[in-house]
């Protein structure tokens, strides 16, 4: 931490330097907020992950690595000497990452044409289209998720139409499946992909596209070799924005997955609630944080790599 210059120690304080020192102090409210509101709670979680579970929730202030041990390993409950990977937890991690990547992919595939459509409208119309994209955000997440449940259920709209048109004989079990979770997450997070993609396309120099056609590139080649590289930063930013909330999703797997299988968010909630093992829950929360940080590192690399290439 820097301290304000003390005029008593320096023989002749540099006025320039002094004013810099005080200017720096102006940012202390912001730094304090960051420290107290962002890092503080995280530090508590980090510290709790190394303590022992208290009696029915809470923690005892005894150091213990047991929380972290249980994240990755399990003693066979029927043979405590036998330590193995905790496949139950690892399976939950894997499902979480896999569903989040699939969600990101679906959002990218659906988001690209959407963003392209908006970016190629006349400028005065674009604001309206963007505005329409944000409409789902006006409604609470939980309510939107229950609305999807209504669509998917046995006597819901989709099944009613499918049965009425004779495509299927009896209602499909759409609800309470990985498909339902994916559909819900893709729907909820799609705008987070469309907006950065649109921002990237908005800046796209369409003369380059024309140049591609002039040089006899096919439509596919122009898309692949001209447009996609130019909007890549939008893809990367959108993927991060979709991936991070997906990985911590709690409501969607609970409501649309019917609670049959857990995602990481649900596993953490289980440990803090019914499992009453806060240190294990805190360690699992730190794992979630580490996955998010890994994704961000990937993002920074991808973006910096892009800039490096351009400068080179």
């Amino acid at each position, binding site marked *: 931490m820097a301290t304000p210059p003390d005029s008593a120690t320096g023989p002749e304080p540099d006025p320039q330097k002094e004013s810099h020192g005080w200017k720096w102090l102006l940012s202390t409210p912001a730094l304090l907020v960051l420290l107290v509101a962002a890092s503080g709670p995280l530090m508590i979680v980090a510290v709790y992950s190394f303590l022992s579970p208290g009696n029915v*929730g809470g923690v005892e202030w005894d150091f213990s690595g047991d929380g972290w041990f249980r994240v990755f390993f399990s003693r066979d409950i029927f043979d405590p000497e036998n330590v193995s990977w905790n496949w139950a937890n690892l399976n939950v991690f894997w499902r979480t990452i896999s569903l989040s990547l699939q969600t990101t992919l679906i959002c990218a595939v659906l988001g690209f044409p959407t963003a392209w459509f908006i970016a190629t409208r006349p400028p005065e119309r674009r604001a309206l289209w963007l505005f329409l994209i944000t409409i789902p955000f006006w409604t609470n997440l939980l309510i939107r998720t229950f609305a999807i449940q209504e669509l998917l259920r046995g006597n819901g709209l989709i099944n009613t139409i499918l049965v009425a048109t004779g495509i299927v004989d009896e209602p499909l079990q759409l609800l309470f499946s990985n498909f339902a979770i994916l559909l819900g997450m893709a729907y909820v997070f799609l705008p987070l992909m469309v907006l950065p993609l649109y921002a990237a396309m908005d800046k796209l120099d369409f003369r380059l596209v024309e140049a591609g056609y002039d040089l006899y590139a096919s439509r596919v080649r122009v898309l692949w070799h001209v447009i996609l590289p130019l909007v890549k930063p939008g893809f990367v930013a959108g993927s991060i924005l979709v991936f991070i909330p997906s990985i911590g999703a709690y409501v969607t797997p609970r409501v649309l997955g019917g609670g049959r299988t857990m995602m990481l968010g649900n*596993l953490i909630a289980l440990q803090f609630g019914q499992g009453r*093992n806060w240190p294990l829950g805190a360690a699992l929360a730190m794992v979630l944080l580490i996955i998010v940080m890994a994704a961000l590192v990937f993002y920074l690399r991808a973006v910096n790599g892009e800039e490096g290439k351009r400068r080179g």
Partner: protein
Amino acid sequence: MKKTLVSTLALLASAGIAHADGVLNIYNWGNYTSPEMIEQFTADTGIEVTITDFDSNETALARVRQGGHGFDIVVPTHSYVPIWIEEGLLQPLDPEIVTDRGNIAPQWVDVDFDPGREYTVPWQWGTTGIAVNTSVYDGDINTADIIFNPPEALDGRINVIPEMSDVMAIAIYAAGGDDVCTDDMDVLRATRDMLMEAKPHWLSLDYGTIDNYVAGDILAGVYWNGATMRARLQNPDVAYGYPATGYPVWMDNAAVLADAENVENAMIFINYILQPEHAAMLSDFARYGNGIAGSEEFMDPEMAAAPEISIPEELVSAGRFNPTCPQEVQDIRTQIWTELLQ
């Protein structure tokens, strides 16, 4: 530091509310407190009531432990009552004001979790059993096999409430265990294997499913008696069974917090709900029994005669109160649960 901050915030929040005598803050499960009864209480006593919801015993305990909560009355489940008492979070009921503890039905007075009812009075009690749609299933409804070894007709249409302790209890009893907190590995192994084999036959593990039972989307499941009754009132095919191998009985109890600000009002409220006509209002709303003798005659007649409330004589002994398990055992149970939902 954290404590000071929280209590300062609570102070700021409560500054808006007049600190008159006529206030009472109740901390209770959501959708559980009869608004009619509260209205009448305010009309009778002039005390204004504020209700705050919690969604689990763990949440309630964690919040009150922090202090500065501003609540006067809390309604924990029997298994948690000893913890609340041991940690000094409750205060003994004032015999000067709470004069009608004699109204408590005899079987609910000398309970293990609060012998002699020194700290708590009954709020509502119920059972966790089996809900089943009898239009597709005509076998015995008083068996856990409906869940753990389901017949063809119910396959894939079963919902199990994601309430670990209730489900583990029914499963352990069905697997031949006697004590829910057992550390008998043979019993636990049998329980786990039974759960793992049963899960592919289940549709979901979800809470709010009354509508699905009514619509016939869900044909059977582990469910609470009161919720099953609400479903049956809309669809007469839904029946409630008590697993003969054993099923959990629970009771939520009202108590006054040690750091309550409106102690006298809280004691007045406790005595108020001991009156049969008021306890009956609680039951009419939440659809559970209330443990107050003579309240039946004030209840909705549909309620007093309900099969979900009156347990068949031969199955009464299969109902058991579950304690909270020690952490080592709880960890094993959570591990089995995680394996089940991985």
